[in-house]
């Protein structure tokens, strides 16, 4: 698929899955979408391995935008991007945006065929400063 992929990374699998449901309601199957949540051991947290898997699942040659919740999700997502390495890493961006609104807005932008830069900019507009 040529639309930008969206990855949702929350500490909670319930938040991640629920956010993905809201994205699907807006854009259907027009946008590659994957989510992950939890530390991989049944607890709250994020897993670099799961994030790498979600990026693979939502991969698009147009790139992937990642929406995260709290700090550890961001740090682990950045680590996952680094471990995936080039050439794909340059097409993956961790967004600075609220996770639910950011994911829905980014996916809506992506569904119209926007570039990764445009998708990320749309998400970033939701974050003051």
């Amino acid at each position, binding site marked *: 698929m040529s639309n930008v992929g969206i990855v949702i990374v929350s500490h909670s699998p319930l938040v991640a899955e629920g956010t993905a449901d809201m994205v699907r309601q807006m854009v259907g199957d027009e946008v590659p979408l994957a989510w992950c949540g939890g*530390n*991989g*051991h049944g*607890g*709250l*947290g*994020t*897993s*670099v*391995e799961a994030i790498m898997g979600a990026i693979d699942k939502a991969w698009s040659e147009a790139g992937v935008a990642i929406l995260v919740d*709290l*700090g*550890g999700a961001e*740090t*682990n997502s*950045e*680590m996952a991007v680094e*471990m995936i390495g080039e050439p794909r890493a340059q097409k993956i961006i961790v967004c600075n945006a609220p996770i639910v609104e950011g994911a829905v807005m980014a996916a809506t932008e992506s569904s119209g065929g926007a570039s990764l830069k445009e998708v990320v900019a749309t998400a970033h507009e939701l974050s003051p400063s």
Partner: protein
Amino acid sequence: MAALNLAGLIAAAADAIAAHAEELTALDQAIGDGDHGLNMKRGFEAVRAEADAFAAKPLPDALKAIGTKLVMTVGGASGPLFGTLFMALGKEISADPDRADLTAAFGRAIEAVAARGKSQIGQKTMLDVLQPVQEALAGGKTTAEIADIADAAAEATVPMRALRGRASFLGDRSIGHMDAGARSTALLVRTVGQAIGESA
């Protein structure tokens, strides 16, 4: 520096983390999300399970592999932070380091951790222990002195106001508690120092 018993060092580090897991969790419960002890224990047990395989590698490769294992198994923000510390150390260190090599590599590894956490000294994090330890290494202190410096540095995070991580959400209420990551870093410094001291 005498040949390092890496398998023994890993076991000692995993023992130290396991023995203090509840204390680390309690520190993290006070001003964080309360998962630090359990997360670190899971990571170091995963490293312990493959200790012989790590020990069979040249030191730089072993450190990189340990860092990767921590990244993949810890599950909180500590995973990438401690993982980056070991991965960067592995990248920078020589196969048979003397103290100067170790000091230089440690300095660059600290920079990598600071970049990963977008943090700096004085923000109530593990950096507040790593930096004094690096200075003590550079200043020729003994392993016992360095361990005491690390403990004092962790203690010195108590009056700090957290500016990074979950504790920063609490603002002034983070004051009066020790940073859990600083404490676990000091624990590891003491354990590694003892292991190196015994093999020297």
